[in-house]
């Protein structure tokens, strides 16, 4: 029971991180029906900016802020030059996304090399015992940040003119524009929001696993994309649910079976959902464009 509880907590922690990354996909897909394959590389770059600044002795808040700004700026540049010119085309944005992602990874390799490095972060060595369950302050931090980000997303979606405009653009982009909604501005804001969630997820990922690599963009992309599909691509709440589900499942497989089977289980699940439940847990039905 103690082992199960510990694995469950580990899984939920990883799940929150996956959820953060998955939200970036779902936000963009929910509006443009486009898979933002560059997302993983954007959060990788932002996370490395934060890690580098922490290593060089910058205050933690400044390092995190710089990582978030870096992610936001890259998202804006990608949207403006790689996505907007081919918006509406089904294939071209996928190709430009993969290309831009590889460019970002190459630049990151030039700056930080391919070496796997630790992510210096407070609370990593501390342990808290709650009866039979062992957890770290970092896990509590991840859960708290996850809850705060979910609350922020809820406020944006339901309480702001931005959220209303996002839903209108999702329903009917052309009509939203004709009613005075600056669609380009809404879309770039969505990319930035996705990048910010991704960088937060990336920082939590690096801190929790205490390891960073420029290839984390690709592996994170695969896990987050799987979480997005499980949750129901296009639904941000589905992305949260999918992230938590995938995190717990991976923790259980690692604990009770073998970590060697992680990718097998993850991709079997991805294929199974795509084949038998493409609408995901949330049952998302994507409206067709008029």
């Amino acid at each position, binding site marked *: 029971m103690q082992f199960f509880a510990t694995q469950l907590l580990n899984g939920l922690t990883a799940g929150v991180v996956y959820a953060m990354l998955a939200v970036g996909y779902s936000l963009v897909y929910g509006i443009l029906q486009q898979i933002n394959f560059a997302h993983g590389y954007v959060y990788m770059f932002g996370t490395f900016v934060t890690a580098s600044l922490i290593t060089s002795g910058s205050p933690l808040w400044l390092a995190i802020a710089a990582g978030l700004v870096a992610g936001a700026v890259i998202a804006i540049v990608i949207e403006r030059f790689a996505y907007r010119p081919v918006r509406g085309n089904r294939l071209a944005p996928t190709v430009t996304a993969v290309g831009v992602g590889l460019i970002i990874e190459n630049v990151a390799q030039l700056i930080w090399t391919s070496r796997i490095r630790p992510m210096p972060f407070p609370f990593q060595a501390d342990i808290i015992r709650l009866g039979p369950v062992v957890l770290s302050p970092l896990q509590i931090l991840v859960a708290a940040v996850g809850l705060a980000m979910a609350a922020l997303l809820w*406020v944006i979606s339901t*309480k702001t003119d931005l959220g*209303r405009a996002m*839903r*209108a653009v999702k329903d009917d982009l052309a*009509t939203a524009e004709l*009613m005075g909604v*600056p669609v380009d501005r809404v879309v770039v804001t969505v990319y930035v929001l996705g990048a910010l969630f991704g960088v937060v997820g990336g920082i939590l990922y690096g801190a929790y696993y205490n390891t960073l690599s420029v290839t984390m963009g690709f592996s994170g992309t695969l896990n987050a994309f799987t979480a997005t599909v499980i949750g129901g691509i296009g639904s941000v709440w589905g992305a949260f649910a999918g992230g938590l589900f995938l995190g717990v499942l991976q923790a259980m497989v690692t604990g009770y079976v073998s970590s060697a089977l992680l990718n097998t289980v993850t991709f079997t699940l991805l294929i199974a959902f795509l084949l038998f439940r493409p609408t995901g847990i949330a049952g998302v039905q994507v409206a067709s464009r008029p």
Partner: protein
Amino acid sequence: MTDTAETPKMGDALSVSNLTLSYGGVKALAGVSVVVPSGEIIGLIGPNGSGKSSLINVISGAYRGPYQGEVCINGTDVHDMPAHRRASVGMSRIFQGIRLFDTLTVEQNILLGGHVHYATGYVASILRTPRARLEMAEQRERARAVMALFGDRLLPRADQQVLSLSYANRRRVEISRALMTAPELLLLDEPMAGMNPHETEELTEQLRALNRAQKISMLLVEHKMSVIGDLCANVYVLSSGTVIAHGPVGMIQQDEKVVEAFLG
């Protein structure tokens, strides 16, 4: 009067001059000139395929391709103006087929029309600053005032999803959303289509009241000649992409070219 051009004047809500538009070699509009003087309701009629919707789409920015000629809204040439900015020069429209945001409620659909006037940015909106909350409250107040123009048709349904509404109420939501942009010029593309005689009469009165009370100029595309006769000072007749006649309704109905265009 069967002139095909009218001289635009300062103060016109809309002036379209020599507009020519082709779709892949086929001329949809050929040298069309239309003027909507400020504060007037002008009709636009013509057989199916005559170019009425093409004209509305060029004016509103829904059509983004190249065209020749000039389109001015409240004196501003909108040739290079993106569609979303045309609302800020005082233009809004409703569509031939009702186009609402189906995942939003009645009130949210209407509030969306006010987006163009929001002064607080997205960040202030997310942070829910006092100014942002005040603006949101003012917009909601405005939305309720707009809904009240339709009596008790919309107000009790403000929190309902628009998909659950009757056809006529969906049309009222669409008009309310357009009114939230605070338009000086309203493009109405067959607003009475699909409405029964009672609903048609009611909406006709409401459009007349809007024109008189709020001085909203209108370009009205409509097949029901009784509505055109009730509301419009003048009417333009389009056929095969050209204006074949314009003038008062009574005169237009006697025009031989118009009779021929409609009856073949």
